[in-house]
């Protein structure tokens, strides 16, 4: 059992899902309330990481972060090191990789708030931002927790992007999925099994929270 890799992965997932709350809420707000006719293009772009193979994302992240890209050079001049093969690089890759898992539940729950409440709030003199903060956000609590938990779980299980931009450095970029991969490739099946089992249990618990939060209090079957 590699606790260093486990701790590193939990730290990565916590940072990424927290940042995604901050980044995802404005995006989800815009996606919910914007009336721009080309909005669907942005929706498609946000959903891309769900369908793209991690290799595509990993490849572009590696190229974009590398010392031959403007972004990579800028980062290098500011911090003195390249982004690839660093924890920060993994955070950036994971933000992209898990973005839809936060934004989509956020946007769904914002959209599910009864519009008459929004009109009532506006007629009582609240600005759109006040209405969002006092009405929409509190009513979207389940969606926010779902987005947080899903992006957390998705980052925990990230493999392809990390394999391509991580460089497998113990304590820096060797995440738990990479550790499991290494254990399997070197035929340490019992060690791989311990780590895999732990990841399986943690992921199950996280998803149980998500589904538990979103369950209906009662179900009316069609036979009644």
């Amino acid at each position, binding site marked *: 059992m590699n606790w260093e890799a486990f701790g590193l992965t939990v730290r990565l997932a916590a940072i990424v899902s927290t940042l995604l709350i901050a980044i995802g809420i404005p995006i989800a707000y815009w996606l919910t309330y914007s009336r721009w006719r080309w909005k669907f293009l942005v929706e498609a772009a946000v959903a891309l990481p769900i369908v793209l193979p991690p290799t595509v994302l990993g490849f572009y992240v590696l190229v974009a972060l590398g010392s*031959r890209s403007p972004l990579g050079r800028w980062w290098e001049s500011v911090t003195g090191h*390249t982004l690839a093969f660093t924890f920060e690089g993994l955070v950036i890759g994971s933000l992209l990789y898990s973005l839809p898992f936060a934004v989509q539940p956020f946007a769904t729950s914002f959209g599910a708030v009864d519009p008459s409440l929004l009109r009532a709030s506006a007629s009582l003199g609240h600005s759109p931002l006040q209405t969002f903060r006092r009405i929409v956000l509190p009513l979207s609590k389940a969606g926010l927790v779902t987005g947080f938990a899903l992006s957390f779980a998705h980052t925990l299980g990230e493999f392809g992007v990390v394999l391509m931009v991580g460089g497998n450095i113990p304590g820096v970029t060797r995440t738990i999925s990479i550790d499991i991969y290494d254990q399997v*490739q070197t035929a340490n099946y019992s060690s791989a099994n311990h780590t895999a089992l732990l990841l399986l249990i943690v992921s199950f618990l996280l998803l149980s929270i998500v589904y538990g939060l979103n369950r209906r209090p009662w179900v009316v079957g069609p036979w009644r």
Partner: protein
Amino acid sequence: MTKLPALLLLFAGAFATAQEITVAAAADMSAALPELVAAYTKKTGQRVKLSFGASGNLTNQIQNGAPFDIFFSADEQYPQQLISEGLGLKDTLYRYAIGRLVLWLPNDSPLDLSKLGIQALLDPSVKKISIANPATAPYGRAAEATLRHFGIYNQVSSRLVVGENISQAAQFVESGNAQAGLIALSHALAPAMKDKGRYWTVPLDAYPTLNQAAVMLSKSKEQDAARKFLEFLRSPDAASLLTSYGFSLPAEKH
């Protein structure tokens, strides 16, 4: 239902090519082996499918039943292990070349490799050094042994980045994400990298010899075709192609 005959034809087509053989090969052969196969297919019509990876990963796949006919390893231990487990045929084991490790720098590096040699790694401009994973790749173990041989392992260990196999280690430094790499000479000489950097050949006494060995797998269903391909490996044509990729040929054949 009109589509059924067409589908059947498709399946028939799939069975007609069932005689092709599948070769699992160490990643250092990723440039040389496709050329070898192209020459072989042109000569004999035999089709060969290739699958590349770290020798340790491929060994693990074979132990778990991967349907390969031949295994090209970057060192001799993995084939020996498969033979001892009854998965490889001892009489087919063939040491076809010796692999060489090089220190590779991209063109934009200011360092003078011919003067510095391995000491180039100690330069502050070298922030990341890519190597292959020592746990699964013989070239990774060779890189570690080299760094220890020159007594600089502790100085550079915090700057090592580990590729999943030697091809990824090469890609890390070729893409400029690492500033130096201990990679295979066969990659440094491959068309994709030849003009993008320069290299210093690590002396042979710095690491255990990378005896590249091929073996036919006992579960192969195309043993005749596989044997013929292994024979081709001993031909002068194959030898000259391997030499052009920087592999030295084994002094003694067995």
